[in-house]
């Protein structure tokens, strides 16, 4: 975006990511007023595909993997995909780089997690 060298950009990204991780670890989303609410949810009452991701990250940093799934089912797969991208391993990236599937999954998640069906309640971000 800005005209800085790639090395500097990467270091900045790492610093920012570390800072964010520290904040997420220390303060609990949903309890602490530090975190802004989801605008989509406030306006429509429905969960957006990202709802629960902050609470999920907090749970992940504290090692509670089961809770991660409960807050946002797509968070773990998304994190795996992002990790593969930044790892630079092009073979694995070739495997997961399927934009159409991602689009389908995001849209399906958006719909399914808002249906008031008992079998799908685990997809809602607050249950």
């Amino acid at each position: 975006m800005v005209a800085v060298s790639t090395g500097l950009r990467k270091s900045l990204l790492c610093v920012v990511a570390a800072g964010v991780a520290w904040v997420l670890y220390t303060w609990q989303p949903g309890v602490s007023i530090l975190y802004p609410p989801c605008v989509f949810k406030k306006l429509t009452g429905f969960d957006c595909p990202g709802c629960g991701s902050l609470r999920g990250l907090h749970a992940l940093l504290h090692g509670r993997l089961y809770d991660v799934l409960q807050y946002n089912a797509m968070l773990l797969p998304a994190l795996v995909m992002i990790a593969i991208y930044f790892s630079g391993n092009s073979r694995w990236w070739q495997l997961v780089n399927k934009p159409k599937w991602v689009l389908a999954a995001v849209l399906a998640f958006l719909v399914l997690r808002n249906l008031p069906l008992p079998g799908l309640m685990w997809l809602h971000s607050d249950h």
Partner: protein
Amino acid sequence: MSQDLGTIFINYRKSDANLQAGYLYSELKKYFHKDQLFKDFNTILPGTDFEKSINEALMKCDVLLVCMGKSWLNATNEKGERRLDDPNDFVRLEIATALQRDIPTVPVLFDDTSFPAPHELPVDLRGLNRRQYVEIETNRFEEDTKKLADAILTIFRQKGIHTAQPHDVLTAQQAGGQAGTRGPQQRSTPVAGNTQQARDLLGSVAAGTKPANNLVWAILATVLCCLPMGIVSIIYATKVDTLWNNGQHDEAIQAANKAKQWAIYSAAVGIIIAIIYGVYIAMMGNELMNSSY
């Protein structure tokens, strides 16, 4: 448009490497626009002068690929004579004309075909021996074709040809002292809005590789920032691969750009909301402190 871009002519013998030449053509479309590729370019009508017709066809040729399978060298006609020994054989005439006019020629050997020895070739084809050849194995077709595409791009660069329409002045700068693209004036519609982005994209186009579809940024934008804008970003990311494989390289680059832009807008919206929220909380905090007295 094809005058500005490099052109690639595929020479092959139907009885020898028909399938491979066809497959090569479709693989090359991943790296080059279909207007740059010419297979079966020679439709010689009865009664026409062969040499003149071939000469005219090759006028636009920047690189000639000579496809050789196992039966290329000793293919025979109905009378049992070797086709290469017939001075009117089209395949021979095309190659000979290209060699004569110093058109870069790349022999492409399929599946363990060995390059013929000089004495096995007719005199006007012996120049082929001095050319660097590329081998393509069937079970490594894609990787080997990529090497061929790189070789072709190197030839283009040496000739001062760029594989894409120049999008802005950067192309001329990158070319350095070499001549810029041939043909009429450059189009001045910039694809990328800023220098670094343009350089990244030109880098990937000049290398003939597919641009990154920016999918990861689209996902992050959707999940962390602004849902609707994030989804728009993902949709653009979806289009990049399809467009590129279809040979629509310019459109693919634009789609990759759009995906990135929408991800950035989404992040901007997210940041603005966070700031507004922060201000709100600060004000609330103030009120709470004031009202407790």
